C-alpha cells in the first residue's frame, strides 16, 4: 500500500498544528462558531445530535493493520469504544469532544491518516473496489489510480471551494463493487488494444434528493491523460455548477440540465487547451506510485481439498461462511474474505475497538497485514490462503465476526439516522435491527438469496436507499417516523434507481412490509432467479397488491 514520504508527513504535521491553534482560539473565545465551523469541517469535525463527530478518511478503503489498531485505540480512548464504517469506506467516531480533536488528529497522523476533505465542497475521499489487487475478475489494480487521484485532489487550490461536494469512485474489475454509477465521476478500467488498458469515464451519478445514474462521458481515455481530463471536467463544473441553490449544485444537475453531450463538448474544448500543461504525471512518477502496490509475493499454499471438504461438511456455519463470505482471488490457492459486521441485531457498520484490534491481528496472521473497508460497511481480508480458511474462521468466531451473510438480506447498509445525525428525519438503525432479527435464521436468509436492502434516515441518502434492491427511506410525517419503500434499485453494473412502491409505513409496520415483499418475491420467483430478475419480469403490481391490497 502507499506509504507517506517526508513531504506528506510534514504537510500533515503543519496542518494539525494549524488546527490545534484554531481549536485553542475557539475555546478561548477568539473565534465565533460562524468563523470556526468552516475550519473544523475542513478537518472532518461535525457537530451532531449528541456530540462532535469526526469522519476519518480511509483512502480507497485500504487500511494497514497498524492503522486499524490505531482506530481501535481512538475508539476506546476518545470515543465510547466503537466507530462506524461509513458508506464511503471511511470511519466516523460519534462521541468526540472538541478539546480532544487535536490530539486525535495527531494520533491519526502517527499512522499516516487524517480527516481532511471528509467534509466540505471539495473532492472527497476517492473510493474504489475493496477487492483491488486481489479480485479474480480484475483487469488492472485501481489503487494506483485512486492514489494518483488522491494526491491530485488533496488541497487542489482550484477545487477546494466547488459548488458542492464531489465524489469519485474507480473500479478495475468486471463486476462493479464500488457503485461507480452513483458518483459524480465514476471510472471503470477497461482493456484496450494490444494488452493496454484505459478508463471509461462516467459523469453525473448520485443519490440524494435527485437521484441519477451516471452517464457515459468518455468511452476510452488513455491512462496517461487521466488527470488533465478530470481537471477539465472539474473546471467546467466549477464554472457552471449552480452556486445559488444548494439542491441544484451537484454536477448531476448540471449534466442533466445541459445534457451530457453539451457538457462533454465543453470539457473536450477545455481539455484541448490544458493537455500539454504538465498536469498529467510523467511515466516515472506513475511507476513510483505503482511500486507501492506491487502484488504480494504469495507463497505456494495449496489447500488439502479432502480436509477442507470434511471441515465444511462437519460445520454448517463454516460451510455457510465459505459460501457467502469467501470470494475468488486472482491466485486460486488464495481467497478474499468478507468479515461481516452484520450479525442480526447489530447496528450495521458499528465496530468496537476490540473488534478492530482482533481483525488487525487476524489480518497480520492470515492476510499479509492488509484490510479493506467496503461501502457496504464490512471489512475485507484480501489475501487469505485457502489452507488457512478454517483457522481464520475459528479466529473470527471467537470475536463473534463470522456472520455468513455477505450480500444477503441481513447485510443491510444503514446510515446512522436520527439516533446520531443532525440531518435525519427518522431512525435507521432500529429498523435495520428489527429486519435483521426477523431474518435472523441464516437458512431462511440464504433461501431468500442475494438481496441488497439499504436504509437512509433522510433524503440525503447516505444509506444508499435508491440503489437497494429494496430501499427504505425514513421520512417525517406530521411528527412521526414513517418509511417509504422502493423496489428495483441496483448499485452495480446494472445500476438503477428504485421505484417507490406506494404510501409509507409507520416504523412498527416496516418489518412486516419487508416480509411481505420477500414472500411475494419467493412466490413469484422462477428457477431460483434473483430478486431483481423477478422484479423486472413481474413488475411492481404483485408487490403493491400484497402490501396494499387489490386496487378498487
Amino acid at each position, binding site marked *: 500500500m502507499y506509504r507517506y514520504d517526508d513531504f506528506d508527513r510534514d504537510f500533515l504535521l503543519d496542518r494539525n498544528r494549524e488546527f490545534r491553534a484554531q481549536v485553542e482560539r*475557539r*475555546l*478561548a*473565545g477568539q473565534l*465565533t*462558531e460562524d468563523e470556526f465551523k468552516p475550519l473544523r469541517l475542513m478537518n472532518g469535525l461535525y*457537530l*451532531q*445530535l*449528541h*456530540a*462532535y463527530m469526526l469522519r476519518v478518511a480511509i483512502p480507497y478503503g485500504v487500511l494497514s493493520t497498524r492503522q486499524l489498531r490505531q482506530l481501535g485505540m481512538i475508539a476506546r480512548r476518545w470515543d*465510547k*469504544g*466503537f466507530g462506524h464504517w461509513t458508506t464511503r469506506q471511511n470511519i466516523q467516531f460519534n462521541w*468526540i*469532544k*472538541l*478539546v480532544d480533536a487535536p490530539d486525535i488528529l495527531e494520533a491519526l497522523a502517527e499512522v499516516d491518516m487524517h480527516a481532511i476533505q471528509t467534509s466540505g465542497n471539495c473532492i472527497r475521499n476517492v473510493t474504489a473496489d475493496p477487492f483491488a489487487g486481489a479480485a479474480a475478475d480484475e483487469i488492472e489494480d485501481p489503487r494506483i489510480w485512486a492514489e494518483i487521484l488522491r494526491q491530485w485532489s488533496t488541497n487542489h487550490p482550484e477545487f477546494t471551494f466547488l459548488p458542492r461536494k464531489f465524489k469519485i469512485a474507480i473500479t478495475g474489475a468486471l463486476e462493479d463493487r464500488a457503485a461507480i454509477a452513483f458518483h459524480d465521476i465514476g471510472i471503470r478500467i477497461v482493456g484496450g488494444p494490444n494488452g493496454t488498458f484505459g478508463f471509461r469515464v462516467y459523469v453525473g451519478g448520485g443519490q440524494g434528493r435527485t437521484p441519477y445514474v451516471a452517464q457515459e462521458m468518455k468511452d476510452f481515455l488513455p491512462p496517461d491523460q487521466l488527470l488533465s481530463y478530470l481537471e477539465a471536467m472539474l473546471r467546467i463544473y466549477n464554472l457552471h455548477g449552480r452556486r445559488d441553490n444548494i439542491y441544484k449544485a451537484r454536477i448531476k444537475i448540471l449534466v442533466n440540465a445541459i445534457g451530457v453531450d453539451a457538457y462533454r463538448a465543453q470539457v473536450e474544448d477545455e481539455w484541448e487547451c490544458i493537455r500539454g500543461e504538465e498536469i498529467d504525471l510523467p511515466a516515472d512518477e506513475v511507476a513510483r506510485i505503482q511500486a507501492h502496490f506491487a502484488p504480494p509475493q504469495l507463497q505456494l499454499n495449496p489447500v488439502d481439498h479432502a480436509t477442507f471438504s470434511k471441515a465444511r461438511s462437519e460445520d454448517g456455519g463454516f460451510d455457510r461462511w465459505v459460501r457467502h463470505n469467501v470470494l475468488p482471488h486472482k491466485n486460486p490457492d488464495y481467497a478474499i474474505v468478507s468479515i461481516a459486521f452484520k450479525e442480526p*441485531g*447489530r*447496528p450495521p457498520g*458499528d*465496530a*468496537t475497538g476490540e473488534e478492530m484490534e482482533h481483525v488487525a491481528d487476524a489480518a497480520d496472521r492470515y492476510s499479509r497485514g492488509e484490510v479493506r473497508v467496503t461501502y457496504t460497511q464490512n471489512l475485507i481480508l484480501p489475501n487469505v490462503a485457502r489452507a488457512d480458511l478454517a483457522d481464520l474462521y475459528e479466529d473470527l468466531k471467537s470475536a463473534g465476526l463470522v456472520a455468513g451473510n455477505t450480500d444477503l438480506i441481513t447485510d443491510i447498509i444503514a446510515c446512522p439516522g*436520527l*439516533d*446520531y445525525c443532525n440531518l435525519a428525519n*427518522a*431512525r435507521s*438503525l*432500529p429498523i435495520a*435491527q428489527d429486519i435483521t432479527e426477523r431474518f435472523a435464521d441464516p437458512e431462511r436468509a440464504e433461501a431468500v438469496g442475494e438481496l441488497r436492502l439499504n436504509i437512509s434516515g433522510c433524503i440525503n441518502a447516505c444509506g444508499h436507499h435508491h440503489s437497494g434492491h429494496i430501499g427504505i427511506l425514513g421520512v417525517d410525517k406530521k*411528527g*412521526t*417516523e414513517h418509511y417509504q419503500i422502493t423496489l428495483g434499485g441496483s448499485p452495480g453494473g446494472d445500476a438503477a434507481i428504485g421505484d417507490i412502491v406506494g404510501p409509507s409505513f409507520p416504523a412498527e409496520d416496516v418489518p412486516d412490509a419487508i416480509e411481505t415483499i420477500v414472500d411475494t418475491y419467493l412466490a413469484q420467483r422462477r428457477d431460483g432467479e434473483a430478486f431483481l430478475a423477478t422484479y423486472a419480469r413481474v413488475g411492481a403490481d404483485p408487490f403493491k397488491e400484497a402490501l396494499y391490497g387489490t386496487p378498487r
Partner: protein
Amino acid sequence: MPSVITANRLVDGIVVYLSEDDKWLTDLAAARVADDEAGLEKLTAIAGQAAADHIVVGPYSMAVDLSEGVPGPKSVREQIRAAHRPTITAVTEAR
C-alpha cells in the same frame, strides 16, 4: 406553549439545557420553562449571551410537554437528545 432552551456545549458537544441560575445542565427535567412569549424572550437573550460567551453552540427554543411541572421532550429527535444516547442497543452493550 411551555418551552425551554437547548444547545450543545462548546467543549464537548454534549446536549445541554438552560436551567436555573443561568446554568447549562444535561438534564432536560431540570430545564427552566418559559410559559409565555415574554418568558421565552428572556431565556433566548440569556442563551444568546451564552453562545457569545463561547459556552454553548447553536441554542434554540423548543416546546416541551409538562408532567407535574417537569419538562419532557415532544419529538423523537428531542427524546434522543435528552437521553444522551441512541435508542438501540449499542455494539458495546450486551445484546
